[in-house]
Structure formats: C-alpha cells, structure tokens
C-alpha cells in the first residue's frame, strides 16, 4: 500500500545521530516479546453471603470452576502453567490448603505448584501482580492468577494475636479501626456528603442492572452447578450464572431512608457500602513470546502497577495515591484511560478518589461496582480485571483500563492494562471500505466496514441441531451447515519471479501446482476430493506435506466428505473458519481463500505449504497448491 510504504520510508531511512533514543521510541511503539500479557479470564457469579446462591458452596469449588473454565476455553493443558497464585483473605492461612485441594479438584497435575496471597481487598489483583513479577523475573513463562472468597463460610472479625503495645502507637492502633469507621473518617475529613454517596450507590445499582439486563456479564461468568439448602432445609442442585446482589429497584428515596450503619450521626449505610459476597475469578497471564509460541490469543497487556501506603484511619483514599503512581509507571495520564474499575468498598471513598483525581464519572465502573455486585474480599481484584477486559473488548478497539482498590490497614493498589491492539487475525487482510449504508430508518449513513459480519460467536451444537432441513423434509442440510450468501471482494497480485524481483517487490508465495477436474453434476460437492490429489501430484507433494487446507465450505456435507476421503487431519482444514461462518460471495471466494491462506501461513512464520480448493456447480472441482517461502 502506497501510503504505508511512504510513511515507513520516513522512519527507516532516518540517519539518526542518537540511536539510543530511537530505540526507546521504537520500543515504545512496538510490542515487546517480553510484555506480560493477559490471555483469558473468567469469573463466577458474585452472590450474597449467607443468603445467596453460593451460601453452601465451599471456596475450593468456586475456584475450581474458574480455573478449569479459563484453561478449557483456550484449550491449554494445565501442565503448561509455571505457577498458580490465588488471592484469599478469610480462609485460615489465606486458604493455602484449600487452593491445593481446588487444584486437584480441577484435575491439575501434582507437578504444578500453587500458593496463596493475602493483601486483603487487593488480594485478587496482587495474585496477578505476583504472577506478572514471576514472568518478568524469568522464573515462569505462564501462570494463572486467581482470587476466591466465601464470606458465607468464614467471617471477618478475628484479628489474630496482637501486642498490647499497639495502643501506644497511633498508626498501629488505627489499624484496628473498623472499616466502616474509616469510611466515616473519609466522608467527614474530605466532605463527601451523604447525598453524594447515595447518588453514587444508586448509579452503581443502575449500571449493574443495565449490564445484567443486556447480558453483558454472560460471557465473563462461568456457570457453577452446586448444592443449595433452601428455606425448608432441603438440599437442591442449582446452576448459578447470575450475580444475585444487584437491586434493580433501588431508588434514591429508599437509599436516603437507610440508617447509618457504623455511627449514629454517620453517612455510611448498608446501601452505600459494598456487599458481603461469595465468588471467584481467574486470569491466565504469560510472557508474550511464550503466549504466541503456544498459539494463545493476547487479550491485553499489563502496562504498570503500584501498591502504596496511606494513613490507616482513612484507608479508603488508597486509589487516589495508587492510580497516579501506576499511571506514571505506564507513561499515561488519567485522560488516556478509557475505563476505571475502582472498587466500591464504600461510596464515600470511591467518590473521594474519583473527584480527587478528576476522573469523568462516566469512565468509572461502567457496569457497576461492589455496591451492586458485592465484594468477595480475596476475589475482587481478579473480578475487576475480568469485568474490565470484557468491557474493553466490547468497545472493540485499543483502549486502556485501570483496576484499583483501597486496602484495609491503609494501602492502595492499582494496575494499568491495555487491551491488545490487534486481536483480529483478519485485521491485516481486510481492506476497510468506506461506503454508504441505508439504515432501518431509511437514513443513509457513511460507514467504514472492516469486519466480517456473518460470524456467529454464539453458535451452539444444540442450536444447530434444532434447525430444519432446508432442501428436503428428511434431509440433513440446513441453513446452519451451509455456506452463507454474502458480498465481498479480494485481489491477489501475481507475477513472474524475475519481473517481481526486478521491480523490488516482495515475494509472498509461489504457485506450485493446480488442477480443475470434472465430477458427476449430481454430487458436485465431491470436486475437491478429486481436484486436490491432481494438484498435489502436479506439485510433487502429498497430503502430509501440506500445512493448511482452505477448502470452501459450500456445504458441511461435501467439505466433510472431501476431508475424510483424503484423510486430511481436521486441524489442518480452514483453521480460521470457512464459508459457513464467513460467507461465500461466489465470484470472490477463491481469491478470498488465497488471502486468508497466506495470512495464516505468514503468521506461522516458517516455510509452509497450503492448498486452496472448492467444488463447482454443474460438477467440477478446482485446487491450487502454494508454497510460502518463510519470512
């Protein structure tokens, strides 16, 4: 592309007097292989302690659900994990025994280690920072960071064994101030009114209710099947996939009526504080080079983090100090951040931090926070990461997010992460087209289209099974297992090697063989089964030599037949989907397959062979064999 080439020219021919600075800028712009990246993350529903759906569920079960789901989703074997770190606060010894039990319940091998971390409300985030630290130090390549808490089965309260001298040292004494009183301290000292706190609480409830209604949490929540003892003391099996603390009916009047919970003339109430809850969350983290080598996706990049100390009697101000420190490390400012997940321990401290930092309110907890969802102590940090990345993913572009929380006894933690710039394998091959689009209201708009719109990520086997045969009553071909009717275009620049090289053009691939054959018209779909061997023979290659087959999915029936007939391993066939998902714009398809094939071969980064083939109506088949010579 001409523009890209010219702009690249401005950069490459720089005869810079100071290469050091250039490298710094180049490093900043490029994605480093040493980056700590997030691969995938999930959470359980967050449920009310002692009354909610998880009141009879042990934390090892909650943890096992998310650990298993994260690895299953990305198809990673647990023996690839270098370490597992779990944030937990209330279990004895932060649940060191519980997590190892959970580990085996999840079917993880004994060879993988696990440990817990307790930095109170930030434990779930601390687990992530610990794993990130181990990756940066080179100890591990890949780790799982989790958080879990059952506040139904363990309660806060036992302070442990403390010296009586703690009363002699002000700050030490302040550490045993109840959390609710620290909230009152923040409200009084920094003038955060009851009205502001209630308004913030209402907005948290409304945002969470909206998110739940729109199904925004559906993707992030792992359904957990567990036992539940009901009011009549009967044990039932339930599947929990919904946060149960959200109160969509919350009103400002209702919140205003609540009595102060911690001191008679206070402003902190049960309605503007976080809820006591159960839940678990897990985040798969790795070094970019290792993640890419394993073929795992990159969801986001950790850009900076900080844990800071603040006075224990106003511990809630922690994020106001931790967020600027983490942003500075990341080289970003508040304005650069798209979404802030700031834990709502209390509305008082959350409002204080947001106002102090001048964060626009619409960027804060867009899907509600702990006031509506609940605050399972050890889980929260990891839960916030999950919610953040699902929100950033929905925004569909490179974006920055911050996760932060205050920590009892006077600390604050924050992490800055960027959603990966290029998640889409198709992004490089698709030319954005700016065109007009007449919408439902008959209004013509200008749109830029850069995404295939036929792909249905929500497809399930059950859904496909339900579809009626499309062509005859007792048939098996449905709209779901046939190619889609679509629009599109593709182009491939081809030349004689000598001419291409004379013009200084790059060589992307070489055509090694091709064939078009005839087959019976009434079973035209078998075309590739005849055409592929003919083309391979011309190229002097066998099925085993080929790395990727792009076989057009006119119908699943004929594609499956051809693949089985030729004995092609299924993982080599249409690794990025075919016409059933992407669509089959008839005249375009062959060229589109070539484009998709070469982008896939290029990503594999080594010399490889690929085949493009399709069946042809009226009874023919075509195939071509290509070589990708390597980078």
């Amino acid at each position: 592309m001409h523009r890209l080439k010219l702009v690249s020219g401005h950069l490459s021919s720089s005869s810079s007097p100071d290469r050091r600075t250039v490298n710094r800028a180049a490093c900043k712009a490029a994605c480093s292989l040493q980056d700590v990246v997030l691969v995938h993350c999930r959470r359980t529903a967050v449920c009310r302690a002692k009354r909610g759906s998880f009141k009879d569920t042990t934390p090892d079960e909650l943890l096992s659900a998310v650990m298993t789901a994260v690895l299953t989703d990305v198809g990673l074997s647990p023996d690839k994990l270098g370490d597992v770190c779990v944030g937990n606060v209330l279990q004895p010894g932060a649940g060191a025994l519980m997590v190892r039990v959970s580990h085996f319940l999840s079917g993880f091998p004994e060879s993988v280690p696990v440990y817990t971390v307790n930095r109170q409300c930030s434990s779930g985030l601390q687990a992530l920072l610990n794993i990130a630290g181990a990756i940066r130090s080179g100890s591990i390549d890949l780790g799982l960071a989790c958080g879990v808490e059952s506040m139904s089965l363990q309660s806060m309260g036992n302070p442990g064994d403390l010296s009586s001298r703690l009363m002699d040292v002000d700050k030490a004494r302040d550490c045993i101030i109840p959390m609710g009183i620290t909230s009152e301290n923040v409200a009084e000292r920094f003038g955060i009114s009851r009205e502001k706190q209630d308004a913030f609480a209402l907005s948290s409830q409304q945002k969470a209710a909206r998110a739940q209604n729109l199904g925004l949490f559906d993707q992030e929540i792992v359904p957990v099947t567990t036992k539940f003892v009901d009011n009549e003391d009967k044990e039932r099996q339930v599947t929990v996939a919904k946060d149960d603390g959200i109160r969509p009916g919350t009103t400002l009047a209702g919140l205003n009526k609540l009595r102060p919970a911690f001191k008679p003339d206070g402003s902190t109430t049960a309605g503007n504080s976080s809820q006591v809850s159960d839940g678990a969350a897990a985040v798969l983290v790795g070094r970019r080079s290792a993640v890419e080598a394993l073929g795992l996706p990159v969801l986001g990049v950790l850009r900076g983090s900080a844990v800071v100390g603040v006075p224990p009697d106003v511990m809630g101000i922690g994020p106001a100090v931790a967020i600027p420190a983490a942003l500075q490390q990341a080289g970003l400012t508040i304005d650069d951040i798209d979404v802030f997940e700031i834990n709502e321990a209390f509305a008082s401290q959350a409002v204080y931090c947001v106002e102090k930092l001048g964060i626009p309110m619409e960027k804060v907890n867009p899907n509600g926070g702990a006031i509506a969802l609940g605050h399972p102590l050890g889980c929260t940090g990891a839960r916030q990461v999950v919610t953040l990345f699902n929100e950033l993913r929905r925004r569909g572009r490179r974006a920055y997010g911050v996760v932060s929380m205050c920590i009892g006894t006077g600390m604050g933690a924050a992490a800055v992460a960027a959603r990966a710039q290029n998640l889409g394998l198709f992004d490089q091959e698709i030319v954005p087209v700016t065109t007009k689009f007449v919408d439902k209201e008959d209004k013509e708009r200008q749109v830029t289209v850069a995404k295939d719109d036929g792909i249905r990520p929500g497809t399930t086997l059950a859904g496909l099974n339900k579809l009626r045969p499309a062509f005859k009553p007792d048939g098996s071909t449905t709209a779901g297992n046939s190619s889609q009717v679509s629009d599109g275009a593709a182009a491939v620049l081809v030349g004689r090697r000598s001419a291409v090289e004379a013009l200084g053009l790059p060589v992307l691939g070489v055509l090694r063989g091709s064939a078009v054959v005839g087959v019976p018209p009434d079973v035209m779909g078998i075309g590739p089964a005849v055409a592929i061997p003919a083309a391979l023979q011309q190229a002097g290659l066998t099925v085993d030599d080929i790395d990727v087959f792009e076989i057009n999915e006119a119908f699943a029936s004929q594609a499956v037949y051809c693949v089985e007939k030729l004995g092609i391993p299924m993982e080599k066939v249409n690794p990025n989907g075919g016409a059933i998902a992407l669509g089959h714009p008839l005249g375009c398809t062959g060229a589109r397959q070539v484009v998709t094939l070469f982008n896939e071969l290029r990503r594999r980064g080594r010399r490889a062979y690929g085949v493009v083939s399709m069946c042809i109506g009226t009874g023919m088949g075509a195939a071509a064999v290509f070589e990708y010579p390597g980078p």
Partner: protein
Amino acid sequence: MMVKVFRSPARHGYAVEASPFIPNRVACTASQYYGIAGCGTLLILDETETGISLVRSWEWGDGLFDVTWSEANEHVLVAGGGDGSLQLWDTANHSAPLRVAKEHTQEVYAVDWSQTRGENLIVSGSWDQTAKVWDPALSQSLITLRGHEGVIYSTIWSPHIPGCFASASGDGTLRIWDVKSAMCRLAIPAHKTEILSCDWCKYDQNIVATGSVDCSVCVWDLRNVRQPVNQLLGHTYAIRRVKFSPFSNTVLASCSYDFTVRFWDYSRNQPLLDTVEHHSEFVCGLDFSLHIPNQVVDCSWDEMVKIYTPACLSAGS
C-alpha cells in the same frame, strides 16, 4: 506548563491550523486507521477556559492530511484529502463542502491560503508531484506547476513576495516558485533525504526552514543557498512539520516522528530552546496562534490535539 487537550477517538491527527480571525479557534484534520485507509475528519475546535471544545466536525470519505483557513472569510477553510481532492468548507451552516475540486491524481498533502495583500489564492501540493494554484472558490486550478521528481509534502506561500510559494519534496529539494511566470525560480538540494516540510520566516523574506527525514531542520537564506544559515539537530526521527513563530523573528518549532515538539532559536549557538514530550505517537500537526503570543497547538497520531504555551517562550514575555 498548562496543556489543554482534545481527543478525537479513532482519528489520528495530521494537521492543525489556528484561525486568523477568531483568537481561540483552530482547525484540525485527522484520519482513521492512521491515514492509511478509511475516512478523514475535519474538526473545528475552540479553546475554552477549561479545555478544548468541539464546535463542528465533518467526515470525508478518505483521509484528510492538511487544512488551511481562508484569509478573507472567517468561516471558510480548505482541506486536502487522500482521494486527491481539495474541499472548500464553510463553518457557518453547510453539512457538505461548498465545493470539491478533484484534479490531483494522488494524495493531496498540503494546502495553503495566500496571505499577501491584494491576493487571494490557494496552493496545493500532491503526491502526483505537482503543485496547483486555485482561485478562492476552487472553481478550477489556475495553473499546474511541474518540476519536482518526487512526491510533494509541503507547499507554503511567501508572506512577503506576491505570487511566490515554497515547496518541499521527497526528491530532496526545496523549490521556490513564481506563479506569474509559472516558473521554478530556485531548486535547492536542501537535504540528502526526503523533505517533509518547509516554512517561511515571517520577518525576513529571504529565510526559509526545511524539515527532513535526516532528522535535521535547516534554515536557508535564499540569497545564498550553498549552505544553510543553521542546521538544527536534536530530533531522533524524521521531522514532520516546521513552523516559524509569528511573534519572534528567529524562533521556530518542529514536530517529529520521535513523538516530540521542539522549539528553536536559529540565531543562537545553542539553538534548541525546549523539547516537549507530551504525545505517545508521531506528532504531525503544528501551528502557532496568531493572536496569543507564543501559544502553540499540535496534534498527533495518538488522537490528541494539545494547546499550550511552551515554558521556553513564556519565560521572557
């Protein structure tokens, strides 16, 4: 240093120009997908007490790479686009351009409205290696000037000499053109690499600055072009735009692919006055306010337009 910021999400800044009529107004062109593909946007922004507010914006079907305000009408401006077009826009009321002139066969990378008295012309420079001069209605080009052997990145009218403009090109030359005789008066092999920008000194009709891929800014006296008056070194990547200050005769600014904006006084032995590093991507657009001494506006591929007064210039005033 107080910095006011405006963000244009998913639009990457290419050019900014301060209004010659309205003290707090600037125009900015920004493009989708870093200007490599997709749409362009023309933004009219007003500096307010607290920040920068959007007055109006228009979408264009291809990237927009440069913009210039009319010197005759406070509402009118011209932008140049990736589709080879110049568009005449009116901030007063229209949703579409008043006029689109498509004569260039490749990207238009530079547009400039003449400032000399008694003249009201627009010059455009394109990757098709030609510069064209237009009447203020863009009805059709008055003249096409050929000579550059590479793409043209920058075309700027002399603020002193009627009918005279300078152009900077990928062929490594700075050229000075006379529109009346339709001739290139001077061709200066100013750099050994591509020249991406040039500008005239506002106080001396013989002084022109060039910014190049070789990371240097050179200041030229057109009466003796065998060597530059000064060579300003410091940028670590190609220089994208140079602008002379309208308020001090030897001060100029440059912005670069190295993410920085630098301020220079070319009369000094140590010419670098200040380096401003407040962008996280290539900085492409730069201008001085004509009304507020030493105020600067810049824009970058990081989606940010920033208005500020650099410390090095505010100190003396």
